């Protein structure tokens, strides 16, 4: 037993959640637009507007959580490729500039007519949007890899934690775009249906990723198996089964499948869509919470 070493708390869990969310908002929207050959451009726009506020909030939380926040510049002047924290600083910087500032600026130029010189420069927008999307993926990945290169069995005994984090991030990104699309005056039901459908598949993939992680941990024996037991049947089993699996994954999955089944006849009620997206977002936060706190039990 090691006492008094629970240094990382909910603030860091929230930071990891927000990092993944911001990343996913950028790449989910970009993929939606690109693969539909522009049909879902609106989704990319919604996603890109979300990026900067979320990153700003996340960074604020990260810096506040540091013991010596005024020395944060030590992170910025240091480039240490072996440190995922250091990689993250650089990934986040590029992501914030391309995905958080430049891409939304193009959209704003189109929407509001500010920065007129950017208006209509579709090629340039797409270029920055793609860079933002790629660094968005890296941002989501970094939030998982950061924990995975520690000496904490639940996080690092297997290489699968980043898979869970990326899947969860993607689901939350889709959910946030869906939530906002659902609040718009002129709703695009087709786009929302596609988002829900995509999210339901992501949730299934996330469930698989969870299973892979837990089976691998249990199979590794020793401390890794103990760490898996903490969330499967131990101290954090309730948070895992009820919070993450039931509320965060299965409930929104059920709603999304239901919506898809009735969509052809009648429009699924807007309230239901809102509920599903909120559940996914809450679930995503609980995933980070679960690993942050659950990881501390077996060291």
């Amino acid at each position, binding site marked *: 037993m*090691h*006492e*008094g*070493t629970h*240094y990382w708390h909910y603030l860091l869990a929230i930071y990891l959640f927000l990092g993944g969310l911001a990343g996913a908002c950028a790449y*989910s929207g970009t*993929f*939606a637009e*690109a*693969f*539909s*050959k522009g*049909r*879902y451009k609106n989704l990319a726009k919604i996603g890109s507007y979300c990026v900067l506020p979320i990153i700003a909030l996340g960074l604020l939380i990260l810096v506040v959580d*540091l*013991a*010596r*926040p005024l*020395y*944060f510049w*030590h992170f910025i002047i*240091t480039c*240490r490729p*072996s*440190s*995922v*924290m*250091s990689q993250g*600083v650089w990934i986040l910087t590029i992501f914030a500039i391309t995905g958080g500032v430049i891409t939304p600026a193009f959209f704003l130029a189109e929407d509001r007519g500010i920065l007129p010189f950017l208006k209509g420069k579709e090629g340039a927008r797409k270029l920055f949007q793609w860079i933002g999307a790629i660094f968005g*993926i890296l941002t*989501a*990945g970094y939030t*998982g*890899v950061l924990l*995975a*290169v*520690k*000496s*904490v069995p639940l996080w*690092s005994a297997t*290489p*699968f934690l*980043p*898979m869970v*984090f*990326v*899947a969860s991030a*993607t689901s939350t990104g889709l959910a946030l775009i869906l939530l906002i699309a659902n609040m718009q005056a002129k709703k*695009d039901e*087709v*786009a929302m249906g*596609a988002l829900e*459908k*995509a*999210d339901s*598949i*992501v949730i299934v*993939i996330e469930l698989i*990723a969870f299973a892979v992680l837990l089976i691998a941990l249990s199979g590794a024996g020793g401390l890794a198996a103990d760490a898996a037991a903490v969330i499967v049947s131990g101290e954090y089993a309730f948070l895992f089964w009820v919070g993450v699996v039931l509320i965060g994954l299965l409930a929104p999955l059920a709603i999304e499948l239901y919506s898809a089944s009735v969509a052809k006849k009648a429009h699924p009620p807007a309230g239901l869509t809102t509920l599903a997206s909120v559940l996914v977002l809450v679930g995503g936060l609980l995933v980070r919470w679960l690993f942050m706190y659950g990881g501390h039990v077996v*060291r």
Partner: protein
Amino acid sequence: MAKAILYDASKCTACRACYVACKQWNVLAAAEVKKLGTYYNALDLDGTTWNLIDFIEKDEPDRFRWLFISKRCMHCAEPSCVNVCAAGAIKKDLETGFVLVDQDVCIGCKNCHYACPFWGGVPRFRGEISEDEKEWLAHGKKIPGKRVAGTVYKCRGCIDRVQNGLTPACVKTCPPGALQFGEKEEMLAIAEARVAALKERGEAKAQVYNPSGVGGTAVTYILLDDPETYGLPADPRVSTADMLTKWIMGLIAAGILTVVPFWMVFKAAEAEGKGGE
């Protein structure tokens, strides 16, 4: 040349003189302890406790064993703490091989604590500097290293003593000679010889602990039992060793998601929903 501190668990009497010597030399406040009915003084490493003796009670079929171990920074040859520190606050002293935190550079993020494979994370955080230390410093007296609130602390290998031709304080004080200090090779040779002698005496599990997964450790142990019995990982790894694999796993997930839901779902719109708006 790389140095080593050799701790011989078969010679240690758990007198804890090393613990006191470390506190004294480094001007570290005594730990507040509760009386638990055990021999523990400090229960765990912390910002002012850089070494301590852990007591292990082991029931064996034919006997009861009381084992001791000196918990402290292992001064890994390939230190995980150095690898993860994004501020570059931890450095390995090339002369001695000791791993040192620079309190002025550390910003207290605790990444190093979570990365360290030993003793539940060796670097420990201190939010405050004690009045004693402030007074000491105010009187112009020297304290080995620096004191900055909001940074992590751990054993410094008494680098200041070593650089002046002395042995570390804990080694110097150890009454039964369970702690020794010298060139790494020399210490390893002593350890091997001692383990051979212990085996001859019937200590079948006697072994040298100098794990290769972290490139070996400047703090080398002679153990009487398996590492796990002492709370040591049998095969510690540099925490960042498989960073690439972990990155790839994250990117594979992203790749799958790109193709399966995104490409499948959003592509459908292109066909059916053209001009849908």
